[in-house]
């Protein structure tokens, strides 16, 4: 990579490795098109992926490695032990690496807990709350609920004192139950949570959150949950509260500044065959008539220089940059948000050169409004540090 190209790209903040598209459960809102495929990343692909990333010149601190989609724990612990060893070898400059897993927790056992502890892994557990919410959407391929197995995994994490972060997908139904969600987290030893909205992505072509009045319902839900979380002893950590507080109290986005998801090469996503993409992780595996596959290259075949110079990447970057600029010009929240996620724009609006999405309407705008109101009502509250989690 030439210095000029390296200077223009990244830095890489988040590496998302997808060791298998396979998921052992079958959530109704899942965006992964190949989650029934049992393909797995080979040792060779793993080694090549890590070598490619660290040779790219993109890596600086802070740097996170997230094992994600499908279900990463389908791969054996030994695979990740090998990954840690290979990472140590590839990471010759000794960059500090924060390891994260996003898991449905159904496969967790004592050996996994030991692995998480030894490698200081941040564990994100996907869980949607009590059975009447969780088991509606998060089911096995036979249609059975999965909550019992998830809770068994959470219990093991707690018994082994592995810190965990719960990630809950909110459907329209869930918006009526902030108290029940709060009780669920407390009962199960969960004190750090984040909310995703049921997004329109990939095969999930609709969302229960599209109905009329949803913005107000989401606002009421989030406000009540924030009130409960902040008054708990100890207070419950809510990702959207932290990120919104940081956005309101921290530096503003200005012309030219970009977020992790819409800045090229701030995220690199690599699938089990070594295909890689940048921008939103959800784009890997999809294509568009205008841009072709969002997998821009393969770690065995393509250098970062070649990909950056390619017409496909430049076309993609031009459209995404145009979309960010449209957000900057049109949206009064831009200074705090930096532009909606490209994947949401693409799947909802059909183009990256667009602005508002359901996700930014609810997760960004409403959360900012609620947190701003909360901060105004609680002026003595110290600013909390942001620790956003991508999942």
């Amino acid at each position, binding site marked *: 990579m030439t210095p000029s190209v390296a200077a223009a790209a990244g830095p890489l903040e988040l590496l998302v490795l997808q060791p298998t598209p396979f998921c052992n459960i079958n959530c109704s809102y899942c965006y992964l098109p190949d989650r029934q495929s049992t393909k797995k990343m080979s040792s060779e692909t793993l080694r090549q992926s890590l070598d490619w990333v660290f040779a790219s010149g993109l890596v600086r601190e802070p740097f996170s490695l997230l094992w994600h989609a499908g279900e990463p724990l389908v791969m054996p612990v030994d695979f990740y032990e090998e990954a840690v060893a290979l990472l140590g070898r590839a990471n010759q400059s000794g960059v500090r690496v924060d390891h994260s897993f996003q898991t449905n927790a159904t496969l967790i056992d004592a050996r996994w807990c030991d692995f998480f502890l030894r490698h200081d892994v941040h564990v994100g557990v996907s869980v949607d709350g009590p059975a009447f919410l969780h088991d509606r959407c998060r089911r096995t391929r036979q249609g059975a609920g999965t909550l019992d197995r998830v809770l068994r995994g959470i219990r093991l994490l707690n018994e082994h004192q592995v810190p965990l972060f719960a990630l809950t997908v909110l459907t329209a139904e869930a918006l009526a139950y902030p108290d029940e969600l*709060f009780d669920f987290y407390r009962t199960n030893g969960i004190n750090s949570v984040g909310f995703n909205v049921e997004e329109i992505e990939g095969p999930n072509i609709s969302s229960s959150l599209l109905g009329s009045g949803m913005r107000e319902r989401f606002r009421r839900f989030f406000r009540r949950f924030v009130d409960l979380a902040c008054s708990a002893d100890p207070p419950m950590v809510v990702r959207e509260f932290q990120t919104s507080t940081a956005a309101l109290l921290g530096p503003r986005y200005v012309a030219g500044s970009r977020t992790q998801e819409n800045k090229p090469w701030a995220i690199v996503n690599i699938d089990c065959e070594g295909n890689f993409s940048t921008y939103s992780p959800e784009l890997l595996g999809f294509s568009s008539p205008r841009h072709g596959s969002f997998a821009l290259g393969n770690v065995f075949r393509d250098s970062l220089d070649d990909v950056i110079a390619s017409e496909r990447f430049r076309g993609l970057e031009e459209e995404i940059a145009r979309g960010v600029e449209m957000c900057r010009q049109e949206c009064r929240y831009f200074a705090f948000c930096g532009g909606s996620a490209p994947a949401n724009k693409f799947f909802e609006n059909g183009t990256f050169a667009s602005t508002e999405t359901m996700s930014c309407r609810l997760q960004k705008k409403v959360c900012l409004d609620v947190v701003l109101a909360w901060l105004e009502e609680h002026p003595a509250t110290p600013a909390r540090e942001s620790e956003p989690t991508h999942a």
Partner: protein
Amino acid sequence: MNLTHGYRLVAAPFFHQSIDWSSRLLVGGGVEEEQGRFVARLAWRVPTAAELAALAIDGAPTKRDELDGCLCLFALPQHLQTAWWDMLDRARPAGTTHLEGFDAFVHEVGSLLAFKELPVPGGATFELVASQPGQRSIGWNSGGARPEGLAFDRSPRTPWPLSPEQRPARLWGAINLGNEAIWAVLVNLAAEQMHDMLAQHFPGLPAPATHGDLAASFLTHLADYPPIRLRLEPGEGYRLPAGGVLVDACTLDMHEPAVLLLIGDRGEKGR
């Protein structure tokens, strides 16, 4: 007498309760006078399928005015129940009857009910009533505005009939804050239906001038009309239907004192 269709019992929307009504309800054998008050006779039985169908519906109505005509059963979330017991634990060593934190607690209860679209009336009153176990009827009216026993949810002096714009002070609902189940005792008819039933069976009776008159007349002349008992688990509460209902509670099967949080509507004059 047979139970007739009256107001319905429903699980309040947005509380996600799965209620087996057949195990929650008992049907009585009428009422009797005891020490100047009306109480349910000690002749309870499980409801028949037809009676269950007349009493309860599984899916709550979605229209607001239909819901207003139902008795809505709800439950406090665990964190509020915990907050209640924590408050009691803090009060016990002090040996005081003043519950520090009570105002904040009932504010949280009000916030919850408002979020769940079952809002308490503006300026609602919250009153704690503790009762001994083993009683057919509880002495739950410290203000003296409501007679003991099975009686209307409002003062007996409230005029009958009310014009549509009149909103008297009344009991809006109650929450079981004890640690045992308590029985709510009810007549499943709103005041208007009681009046119609009296007129149908006893056309010569003088028209009641107050709700107290109406209650006395109904419970005397139609003493065999079956009251019902609804079991309220700890943390559960009910919102009474609008329109005036006869309500009481009994602690017969309990071993420890009952604690009810009574939620009152001050009515138009109280605002």
